[in-house]
C-alpha cells in the first residue's frame, strides 16, 4: 500500500481498472494518512468521510460497469475556495466558518462528472490573500519538508497535501502566484492556466480579472490529466473563453530540439537568493542538453508588477468582498444598534487583519479623487507589463526563471510585514496581470528545501508547457522525491 501513494494518476487509473485496488480501498488509505498526519500539518480544513466514501463506492460501481474515465475513483483534494454542494466551504475565513455551499462550482462539477472522489477541503490563506497560509482563520499549514516552515500560499493546504501524499492530486487557485509559489516551496508541479481557461463559477472571488484555478500534482503528466477535467467553456462565467476542448497530454512526449527558452534578466537580478538561482541555472543547463536554445530577453517592467498588483487586486477585492454583509449568508455580529452598525461589526468580526488591510487599500484607491492616480494608472502600467511579454514571445517559445525568490521561510518570519510578504510574488504576479499561463516544476534542493523552476507560456500554450515540464521529468527525478517522516 505504501507504494500506491507515489503512483501517477495514470498508474492509479490502471490499478483501478484492473481491480488491483478498489476506489474505496485507495480512498481509505488516504483517509488513514490524513488521520495520522493532518493533526500536525493542518492541510485540510474540512473532511466528510461519509460523503467521500460514498463517492468512492459510486466510483467502484462505475468502474465495474465499465464506464470509468481517466480519473474515476481517484481521491482529489479540493481547495476550500470551491463551493461544493453540501460541503462546508470556508475560504479560510471566520466569515464563512459555517457556510454550507448550496451549489457546486464548475470545477467541482467537472470532477464529479469524471467520477473523481472529493477527499476534503484544503486549508488556504483567508480569501486567498497571502503567500504563507498564515492568514487562514483555521491556523497555518506546516511545510512537509520542514515543519517549522510555511508551505507558501495561498493554496498552502493543497500544496502540503500533495507534498505529504495526503491526496493523489489537488486543485488550487492563483491570483498572484498562489499555485506556483507553494509548488516551488513544497516541491511539486503546479500550473496556473491562461486566464479564462477554467471557469470561475462557484470559485469564491478575490480579484476577478486575475483569479484562475489550476492543478497541483506530482508531475506535469498528472497536471495535464487534471487540466483535461478542469478546462472548458462555461456559460456561467462571463470571462470563460469559448474555444474547442483540448487534450493537454497530446504533446507530452514531443522532443524539445530547437525549443527557444527566454531568460529574462530581471528574474536573475537582486532579490533572488543565490542558492535558488544556482538550482534554476542547473535546470536550464539540463534543458540545453535536451536540445533547447537559450535566448536572453528582458521584461523591463517586472519591478512595477508588485505596486500595480497591490492596486488592482485590492480594488477588485474591496468590491467583491462587499457581498459579506451579514444578511444573506455568512457571519453576522451578535449585537448591534442599527443596520449600519450591523454591517460594520459583522465585517470587523468576520474578516482577519490581512483581508481588512486589502479591503481598506482597495477602498482608498477607488475613492473619489484618487481613482486616476491609482487605479487608472495601475491599469495603464498593466498594459506595459503585458506588452513586455508580447515582445518577449516574438523571440522565444517559453520563458523560464525562478517561481519564488527564496525557499520556504520560517513560520512567523514575515507574518508581521505585509510588504516583505508581497515581495514573495515578484516572479509570479506579472503573469497574472498579463493573463498568461505559468507553472512551477521541482528543479532541485537548497539546504534540503525544494526549489521550483517557473515555465511561462504564451496564451493557451499549456500543452507545450506541459511537454516542456514532462521532458525534464523524464531525465531528472526531483519530482519523485518525498519529504521524510510522512
Amino acid at each position, binding site marked *: 500500500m505504501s507504494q500506491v501513494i507515489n503512483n501517477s494518476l495514470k498508474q492509479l487509473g490502471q490499478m483501478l481498472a484492473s481491480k488491483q485496488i478498489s476506489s474505496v480501498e485507495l480512498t481509505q488509505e488516504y483517509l488513514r494518512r490524513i488521520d495520522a498526519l493532518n493533526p500536525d500539518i493542518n492541510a485540510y480544513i474540512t473532511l466528510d468521510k461519509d460523503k467521500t466514501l460514498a463517492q468512492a463506492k459510486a466510483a467502484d460501481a462505475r468502474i465495474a460497469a465499465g464506464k470509468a474515465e481517466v480519473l474515476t475513483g481517484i481521491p482529489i483534494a479540493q481547495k476550500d475556495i470551491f463551493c461544493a454542494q453540501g460541503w462546508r466551504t470556508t475560504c479560510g475565513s471566520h466569515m464563512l466558518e459555517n457556510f454550507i455551499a448550496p451549489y457546486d462550482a464548475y470545477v467541482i462539477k467537472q470532477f464529479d462528472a469524471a467520477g473523481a472522489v472529493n477527499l476534503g477541503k484544503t486549508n488556504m490563506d483567508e480569501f486567498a490573500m497571502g503567500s504563507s497560509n498564515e492568514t487562514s482563520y483555521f491556523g497555518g499549514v506546516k511545510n512537509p519538508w520542514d515543519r517549522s516552515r510555511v508551505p507558501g500560499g495561498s493554496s498552502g493546504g493543497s500544496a502540503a497535501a500533495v507534498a505529504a501524499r495526503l491526496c493523489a492530486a489537488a486543485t488550487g487557485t492563483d491570483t498572484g502566484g498562489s499555485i506556483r509559489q507553494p509548488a516551488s516551496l513544497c516541491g511539486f508541479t503546479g500550473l496556473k492556466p491562461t486566464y479564462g481557461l477554467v471557469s470561475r463559477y462557484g470559485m469564491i472571488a478575490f480579484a476577478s*480579472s486575475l483569479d484562475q484555478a489550476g492543478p497541483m500534482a506530482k508531475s506535469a503528466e498528472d497536471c495535464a490529466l487534471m487540466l483535461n477535467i478542469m478546462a472548458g467553456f462555461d456559460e456561467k462565467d462571463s470571462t470563460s473563453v469559448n474555444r474547442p476542448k483540448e487534450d493537454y497530454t497530446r504533446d507530452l512526449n514531443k522532443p524539445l530540439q530547437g525549443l527557444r527558452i527566454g531568460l529574462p534578466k530581471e528574474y536573475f537580478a537582486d532579490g533572488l537568493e543565490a542558492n535558488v538561482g544556482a538550482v534554476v541555472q542547473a535546470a536550464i543547463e539540463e534543458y540545453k542538453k535536451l536540445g533547447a536554445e537559450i535566448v536572453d530577453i528582458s521584461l523591463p517592467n517586472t519591478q*512595477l508588477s508588485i505596486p500595480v498588483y497591490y492596486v488592482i487586486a485590492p480594488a477588485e477585492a474591496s468590491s467583491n468582498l462587499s457581498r459579506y454583509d451579514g444578511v444573506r449568508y455568512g457571519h453576522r455580529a451578535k449585537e448591534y444598534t442599527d443596520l449600519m452598525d*450591523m454591517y460594520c461589526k459583522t465585517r470587523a468580526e468576520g474578516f482577519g487583519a490581512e483581508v481588512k488591510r486589502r479591503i481598506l*487599500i482597495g477602498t482608498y484607491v477607488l475613492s473619489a479623487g484618487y481613482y486616476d492616480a491609482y487605479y487608472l494608472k495601475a491599469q495603464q502600467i498593466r498594459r506595459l507589463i503585458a506588452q513586455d511579454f508580447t515582445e518577449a514571445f516574438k523571440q522565444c517559445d517559453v520563458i523560464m526563471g525562478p517561481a519564488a525568490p527564496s525557499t520556504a521561510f520560517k513560520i512567523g518570519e514575515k507574518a508581521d510585514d505585509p510588504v516583505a510578504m508581497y515581495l514573495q510574488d515578484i516572479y509570479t504576479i506579472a503573469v497574472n496581470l498579463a493573463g498568461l499561463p505559468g507553472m512551477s516544476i521541482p528543479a532541485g534542493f537548497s539546504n534540503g528545501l525544494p526549489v521550483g523552476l517557473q515555465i511561462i507560456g504564451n496564451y493557451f500554450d499549456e500543452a507545450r508547457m506541459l511537454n516542456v515540464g514532462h521532458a525534464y521529468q523524464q531525465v531528472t527525478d526531483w519530482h519523485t522525491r518525498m519529504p521524510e517522516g510522512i
Partner: protein
Amino acid sequence: MSLNIQDVQRIAHLARIEISPTEAEATLSKLSGILGLIEQMQAVDTTGIEPMSHSQDVTQRLREDTVTETNRRKDFQAIAPLVEDGLYLVPKVIE
C-alpha cells in the same frame, strides 16, 4: 500621499468595517508601508497608454432574456443568519 488616523477612520467607514482607535493606529503604519510600495508607479510616464482592465479582448456575451434558474429560495435561506416567512431580517431601516 501620506495617510493620517482620520483618513484610516474614513476609509474604514466607507468599507463598512468598525475599527477601534488602537486598531486604526496599527493599521495606519501598515497601510502607509503598502502605499509607499504603490507610490513607485508615479515615476512611470503613462501618457496616452490605454488602460488594460482585462487580459483577453472579449466582449460580454448576451443570452435570451428567459428564466434559466429554478426557485431555490428555501435552500438559500437555510444558510441566512436571520429569516422569517421567507424574508431576510435586518434591523429597522425606515422609521
